[in-house]
């Protein structure tokens, strides 16, 4: 009688041990993550425009296969007929797009590979130019930090809805000293499907040198950029961002050397803002620190002697930045910067025309020396010229002299052994002095060989 009982207990013991073992073994390991093939993509280009302005989308293909793209421009009326183009491998294509409305924007759809997209907007009579990378479609809250409305400027929020459903947005404006502005007209604002609008910030908040705009899509999705037109024809253009960050990198080069850093703090708590200037061939400047209140935007003046990068650290949480760089003429430049280094970048051309004075700056925020290869991506493709840089840890360097001048209108592929930050900064002196800065477009891992 006892043996079956003991055997049964043993079996129960085996089962109990099995339960313990199963708990420890756990689930089977998941397979490897699927690698993206970048077979299709999309860029939102809220470039804006206006009467007499001209816009173009710069498509740069750092890969080894041609990539097809389809461009559709939106405004307050029906979208344009899509334009189908092919961007050659190792080259770029500059496609003119309509920009007769303040709120003009373009959707770029790509097929067959990854390409970088940036917009170039020139004011009426070419007095000013703004260049900025296009942004990826993203839901949620957008921020634009370069919409200040000091005297003599008109600032616009370009809000684009290239999607098939209506978007309903709330716009809030933060400034230095005032309470956040929530205007009834800009609350539950409907952006119809496949439309794009420009919101004049000055109509809601005038005379503020630093304004952070928050565009919250309650329903649907949008893309946001900023457009600032100054008296005398100057034009600045910057992309919005959906990702407040605690670290930002911005360029300050090829201009007058002066600039203004706008820091926006959307959160309610105060932040400590530390700014460091890194110049080529010189040690980093001593950081300057400032305390900034929550739900505010503030402007911090900058002065650089030569090509420099601005490193902004926002302690206590995330923030949004924009850099307004003064040009040597009436035209200023602006960029929203980038929050993360990457090994590979595509930097759009920042000089207009063959007579432009292009510039490219690479920052090494790491702790080891980095070897950087540069390759031009000319219009029409082909074997672009190459160059090599060496950057010390924490250092900054410009493209070798004469490199960019081989094709001032070409994009540049920047490939480094370690994460770096690449910017473009250029001037054009044909006619009015035009000045533009643009952050590069990080190339996703695996997009190119």
């Amino acid at each position, binding site marked *: 009688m006892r043996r079956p009982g003991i055997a049964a207990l043993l079996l129960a013991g085996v089962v109990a041990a099995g339960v313990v073992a199963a708990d420890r073994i756990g689930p089977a390991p998941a397979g490897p993550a699927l690698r993206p*093939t970048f*077979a299709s993509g999309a860029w939102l280009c809220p470039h804006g425009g206006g009467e007499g302005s001209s816009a173009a989308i710069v498509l740069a293909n750092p890969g080894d296969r041609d990539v097809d793209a389809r461009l559709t421009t939106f405004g307050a009326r029906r979208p344009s007929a899509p334009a189908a183009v092919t961007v050659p491998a190792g080259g770029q294509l500059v496609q003119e797009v309509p920009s007769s409305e303040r709120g003009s924007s373009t*959707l770029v759809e790509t097929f067959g590979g990854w390409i970088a997209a940036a917009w170039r907007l020139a004011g009426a009579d070419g007095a000013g130019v703004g260049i900025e990378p296009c942004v990826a479609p993203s839901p949620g809250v957008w921020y634009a930090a370069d919409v200040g409305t000091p005297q003599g400027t008109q600032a616009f929020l370009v809000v684009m809805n290239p999607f098939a459903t209506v978007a309903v947005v709330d716009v809030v404006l933060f400034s230095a000293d005032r309470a956040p502005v929530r205007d009834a007209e800009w609350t539950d604002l409907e952006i119809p499907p496949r439309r794009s609008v420009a919101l004049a910030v000055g109509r809601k908040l005038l005379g503020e040198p630093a304004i952070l705009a928050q565009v919250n899509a309650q329903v649907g999705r949008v893309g946001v950029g900023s457009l600032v037109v100054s008296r005398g024809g100057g034009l600045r253009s910057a992309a919005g961002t959906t990702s407040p960050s605690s670290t930002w990198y911005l360029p300050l080069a090829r201009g007058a050397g002066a600039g203004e850093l706008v820091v926006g703090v959307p959160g309610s708590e105060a932040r400590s803002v530390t700014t460091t200037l890194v110049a080529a061939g010189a040690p980093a400047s001593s950081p300057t620190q400032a305390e900034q209140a929550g739900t505010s935007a503030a402007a911090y003046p900058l002065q650089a002697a030569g090509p420099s990068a601005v490193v902004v650290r926002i302690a206590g949480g995330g923030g949004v930045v924009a850099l307004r760089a003064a040009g040597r003429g009436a035209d200023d430049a602006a960029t929203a910067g980038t929050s993360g280094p990457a090994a590979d970048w595509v930097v759009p051309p920042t000089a207009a025309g063959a007579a432009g004075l292009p510039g490219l700056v690479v920052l090494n925020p790491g702790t080891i020396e980095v070897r950087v290869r540069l390759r031009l991506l000319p219009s029409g493709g082909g074997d672009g010229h190459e160059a090599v840089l060496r950057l010390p840890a924490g250092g900054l360097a410009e493209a070798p002299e004469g490199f960019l001048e081989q094709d001032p209108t070409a994009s540049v592929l920047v490939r480094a052994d370690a994460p770096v930050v690449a910017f473009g900064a250029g001037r054009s002196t044909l006619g009015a002095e035009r000045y533009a800065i643009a952050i590069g477009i990080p190339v996703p891992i695996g997009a190119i060989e």
Partner: protein
Amino acid sequence: MTSAPEPDAAVQQSFPTVLVILVARGDPARLRACLAALAAQTYPRLGVLAIDDGTDDGSHELLVRALGAERVLRNERPEGIARCLARAAAAPVAEKADHLLVLHGDAAPDPDAVARLVEATAIPGVERVGIVGAKVVDWDRPRVLRDVGRSADRFGHPFSSLLPDELDQGQFDRVLDVLAVDGCAMLVARDVWRLLGLLDERLDGDGVLDLCWRARVGGWRVLMTPLARVRHAGGRPSPEHRRYEEDRAALATILKNYSPWSLLAVLPLAALLAAVRLVFLALTRRFEEAVDLGRAWWWNVVHLPGTLARRRRVQRSRRVSDRALRRFTASAGIRLPRWFQTAERIWEEQRQLDEADEPGAGGFRRRTVSLARAHPVVVGSTLAGLVLGLALRDLVGPEPLAGGILPAFPEGAGPLLAELVSATRSTGLGGPLAASPALAVVAAVSAIVPGGAAVAQKVVLAAAPVLSGVLLYRAAVRRTARPGASIVAALAYGASAIALWALSEARLSTLVALAALPPLLERIDVAFAAGEPRDGRRRLAAGLAVTLALGVAASPGVALPALAAIGLAALWGPARLRGLQVTLGATLASAVLLFPFVPTLAAGGGAALGSTVGTTDPLAVLRLALGPGPGTWPPALFLPVAAVLGLALARGPQLGRTWRTAVLAVLGLALAWASAVGWLPPALANAPTWGALAAAGQAFLVADGLASGIGGLGREAFGFRQIGTALLAVVLVAGLGLQSIAVVLGERAVGDPARIPAAWAVVHGTSEGAFRILWLGGDRPEPFPPPGGDPAYRLDAGPASLRVGLTGREGASILDLARPLAGPGADALLAALRDLVSGSTAHAGHALAPFGIRYLVAREGDLPPAVLAVLREQVDLDEVPAAGLHVFRNAAALPPAAALQLAEGDEPLIATPAPRAAWRLGSVRSVPLAPAPGGWAGRVPGGSWVVIGSEYDPDWRLRDDGGGSTAPVRAFGWALGFRPLASDAEVRVDYGAQLPRTLGVGLLAVLWAVALWVTRRPVAR
């Protein structure tokens, strides 16, 4: 034997003449005894006329020697008792007799039997005695009563109040006024037989009730006198057709003997009950009895003129109303004999106990225990019925069911049968995978049950747990021969967490597995057992094949534990060679019974066998709680604990089988866990079915332990067995009690339409036309929110792994029962999803458009964050506000079947073999095609491509109203496409190779009919 000398007048007056009509039909030994008994009769005025009914065993010679040739009539061949009596009654000697005594050749009356019969005709105060019968006892066991008079139910079936082998203890020793007597020794008054005739020749020996009933209608009494005792051997005709003869005679009897009003009331009810019996007999595979029943009714239809002619004669002689005869009809009117009689018996027992017992709690407890001991099955079934009724209370009411993974049922049986016969699949992404033969059963339910799909769903869901409990009980009874232990095991099985979870979520496949596994496991044990199968190897194999086929048809995963059981028995069983022969033969036979469905089972690497749900928590697996629901809480551990105790208590020659069952149960647990956590390949990973194996094994262990533990405890010294049995009882009582409470109080996943998330209205309520829904979920083995059903596939993508399902706009459908998402269409869909989750595309909407997918739906919080981010980055997927769900609407969606007017330059994108070409489609105007029987139809603008999100097959055709026929091209690499027509046209798209499938289904029906006939249950006696 010679007749007695002529009596004088006084004797004549006090002793009416009796002519014995002795019918000899063989058995000379008993005939000799019968003749001797007649010779010993004390009655003075007795004559004998014998009829030899075509015997050839010396009976005729015996009669001639005993009675003389002039007293023996002979039929050249057997004519039956009725014709014999009719011939005898026509003899001149019969005219003169006051009484005819019908006597069978295998009946031996006591010496004073005839005198007592005659005496009963002249009882003072009892007039018009027409027929007198004797107390009939068994020939070989004279103490056993065979007949003491009979009644009948209202439908003409004879009914005897005698219990089987009831002993004669004088309990019937009084003259009884009855409806009918036994025809083996029956005294009939001359007036009766001359007016009404004797037995109906058409009914032969079954016409005795009819004769007696006629006598009653004519105002004569029919008595049974216990003083006249007759021994009777009771030879009956072939048992195969006993039901036929009984039913035939019963119907003919009521047709003749009831008044018109009575007949109007009884006949429709009799027809209804016959129909119900017919269905019951067919469902329980008692086909011969069902055929007999049908033949009996048909006989009466054919012989109606003769019946009516006899009816007129009866009704002319009527002197008594049917109401006056009602006291002779038995109470078992509905003729559910075992249940009704058992209930009556229990009631009578309890009433007697009540009278004998003292009042108070002690008496009540004793009565309860005695009731449970004496009738464990009834008690257990009643308790289970009560709990189940409360558990299924949500099924009562007119509202349709919703929630869980309950699939949508189409209205009526038509769509189900159409899907079964169709050569192409109308759900999923089309293709040739055949529907499950189980749809035929669902169609039958839908056809029989009034009230539409909503009621059919409820019937199927309510029947499933009952079926699993009954089948577990029957298998356990065959295994242990202990009804008490088996009913407890069945209750434990029904109260297991897995059974309650399956019921809560309306998991039809799991419920079928729970029903099919017990008989499968028991039959496999029998195949490998030491002794030869009682029914023979062929019948065993056939039965096993049918059960396996039925189970696999609705729950393909059932094949896995069945094969596991076969494998284990092949390693460990006593008769391995025979067992392998039987089980492998059965497996092959079941494959034949499912032959159109076999490719479906094999598709996608056996995807149909697997399941994507379960639990990764080993403790939950241990108690068989594979998902949430009432009864899945820790007390559900009662079953495995009881199983361990049962294993410890089991003993006897079947201990080896018990241990094999224990190993299977442990194996089931281990594989259920391994399935859910991804350690098994998809074709073997089926946590619910492995869990069902564990549950069935555990229930069998409980039965084995109880069967061993309860018997003989009192004869053993106190020790482990007594303690173990007590522990087992405590565990079972506590477990069943707690599970019952959980079932009654808990909320099931299936219930009223409020079980569907409110956000579902975003998808279902606001969209028009046909479309498909892609269901997505994170890498957890859980179902989708209702009505998404269970995931069809797991996409392995590392941290972005997903579960995927595809349904129509109504959600999961019963048409997809046991049918996987597999084939070129599914491969293309999964490739598109890999592109999506890997971040390789920003045009997932376009990628999913050729599949007709308009919505992507996931439970809020269920998607990996990376996947949710990727979805939100798509330019053609727009998230729709929906509380509790993530709903993405596909801006590029195409109807599942439509005419497409493409942008300029996009035409090459349709016919290119590259599936990613769809991403580049520009603006598309679509004109949907409506589903039509066998395909689609609609008006197509000229210059439009017709694209259908169904797998390409060259046998499809597009026919236009101009008589043209267009062959298809492969669209998007996998789908159906038809090149543009020159001008607008009415078109129809249909499949041109339906005939082979139609023939195949016809052949399948024949095979099943043969299989069910081979495995029919023997005629019940």
